[in-house]
């Protein structure tokens, strides 16, 4: 379209520039702080340009927070959530979309409702379940009298115990327990033309064969989209790991570690606040999901929009 709007174009760039500056400034300042030493950071006026202390600060923050193991843990948790979600979502959506059976709508809604309540809202009881993941089943057996029956008939004392505190399973499973990915998959499966299913059936493919040979190869972009979103979601989890992990040395994740770096009375004991270290650590922790979002932008945006959260 031929449209000459030089003034508006200039204004457009100006507005966008102002917006971008507003977005960048806080992180820029944090970055600058991470590149100066203790003294420079705490002296007014504020530094606006990076110094040369980034590397030493990073090294010190890394050692201080014992980031090595924690980064490994963060990656394990994020990848665990990604793989778990994708697998569960794919299987569930496949069963719901490609099979007709009684109770299908009930199951559909049972899964749908989990979208309503984020983990943060039901944090207290979820924590109690994590202390013993089998407690729901124990309670059900107690109520229904199965425990009593087993006890009196076979002499077995039923006491199911599976403590998830301080474990990767405990970090991962509750984060998998929502329907986000299921709906992304369902949307996608519903766009598969009926004739493709029929062609596969005519070609002799059973349901699992169809899933493996046709659906999964076709849903590659879907998987990429879901993977980026879930990686960012899992990496950035804070409240849940804060609660479920008390053994930080072995199971701590990096994002939780940030809370220890807040330079308040507790950490500095009244000394000069160590902002340069806190900011250096922040930079390191932020980086992996940001890189994912930037490099996987196309899939990330698509996934976000299609899941509608």
């Amino acid at each position: 379209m031929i449209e000459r709007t030089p003034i508006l174009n200039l204004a457009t760039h100006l507005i966008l520039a102002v917006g971008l500056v507003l977005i960048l400034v806080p992180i820029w300042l944090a970055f600058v702080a991470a590149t100066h030493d203790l003294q420079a950071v705490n002296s007014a006026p504020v530094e606006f340009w990076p110094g040369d202390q980034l590397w030493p600060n990073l090294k010190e923050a890394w050692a201080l927070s014992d980031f090595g193991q924690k980064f490994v843990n963060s990656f394990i948790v994020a990848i665990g959530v990604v793989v778990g979600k994708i697998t569960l979502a794919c299987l569930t959506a496949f069963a719901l979309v490609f099979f007709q059976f009684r109770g299908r709508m009930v199951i559909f809604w049972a899964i749908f409702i989990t979208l309503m309540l984020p983990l943060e809202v039901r944090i207290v009881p979820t924590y109690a379940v994590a202390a013993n993941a089998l407690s729901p089943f124990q309670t059900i057996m107690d109520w229904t009298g199965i425990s009593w029956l087993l006890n009196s008939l076979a002499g077995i004392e039923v006491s199911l115990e599976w403590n998830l505190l301080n474990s990767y399973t405990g970090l991962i499973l509750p984060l998998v327990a929502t329907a986000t990915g299921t709906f992304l998959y369902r949307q996608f499966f519903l766009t598969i033309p009926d004739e493709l299913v029929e062609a596969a059936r005519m070609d002799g493919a059973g349901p699992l064969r169809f899933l493996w040979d046709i659906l999964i190869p076709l849903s590659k972009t879907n998987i990429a989209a879901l993977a980026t979103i879930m990686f960012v979601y899992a990496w950035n989890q804070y409240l849940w790991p804060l609660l479920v992990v008390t053994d930080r040395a072995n199971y701590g994740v990096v994002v939780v570690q940030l809370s220890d770096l807040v330079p308040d009375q507790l950490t500095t004991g009244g000394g000069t606040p160590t902002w340069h270290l806190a900011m250096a650590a922040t930079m390191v922790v932020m980086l992996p999901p940001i890189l994912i979002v930037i490099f996987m932008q196309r899939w990330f945006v698509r996934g976000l929009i299609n899941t509608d959260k």
Partner: protein
Amino acid sequence: MRRAHFKFSWIVPLLLAPQLLVIFTFFYWPSAQALYWAFTLEQPWGGGNTWVGLQNFRKVLSDPYYWGSVRVSVIYALATTVLAMGMALTLALFVDRQLAGYRAWRVGIIWPYAVAAPAVGLAFNFVFNPGAGIFSVINTLSPGWWDLSKYPWQAVTAIVIAGAWKQVAYSFIFFLAALQSIPRSLTEAAAMDGARPLRRMIDLQLPLLTPTFFFLLVINITDSFTDSFGIVDTLTGGGPFRATDLMVYKIYSDGFRGFDYSGAAAQSIILMCLVMALTFIQFRYVERRVHYT
């Protein structure tokens, strides 16, 4: 739904079992548990439960601190939503003009979505710090005027700005996607009718964004209730004087620091109802949108 199906077989329960087990254990059971606790009084980790009816709710609702928490949560929700959506909408409208550098602008605005809430909180903690950040400049001019840990309104302002900063990217992505889904022919028709770019923004693009706008409104408010924990915990710690004690934060501190499971459960139930009500509105809306497109 679709007309082509496989025959039901033993595969189906196997496919569904993992998800259903996980959801039951980590979603339905805890939610039911919260209900149970809300109506009983329980000692943390064992001990007896006694049925107390609505007593826990009465106690929570007669607690002035609770109402303070509700108040600041509402302020936080509205303020972050308005700020974030306003900024996101403006940026999306101008990025959508697709001038030179379009991709760069887009990436520049999207990436904050990936920043963890506590990292946002910590970064803003530095920025707003009375001794070290840019706001320390104010204090060199007028010593002691700016201090988050002393003045409630400053603390609230700080979490609102940090929260809004984090939310901009999300709304931006949706606004931009909605703008780009407006058919090109529509824009061209408006141009043939003599509408210039700004005019088209007002007459064409904004009205067509209405569904997205309402969708984002609900999502942003819901998120502000649930997603704020990390920011508050690293930026203000709920203080000063409980001025930034948002609802989720209070549930956490009552439940895990105060070991008041029943009180925390009652608060959880109230928050659940609130979030469900908001989500319900959204589902109804989403339902409608599905029908229209």
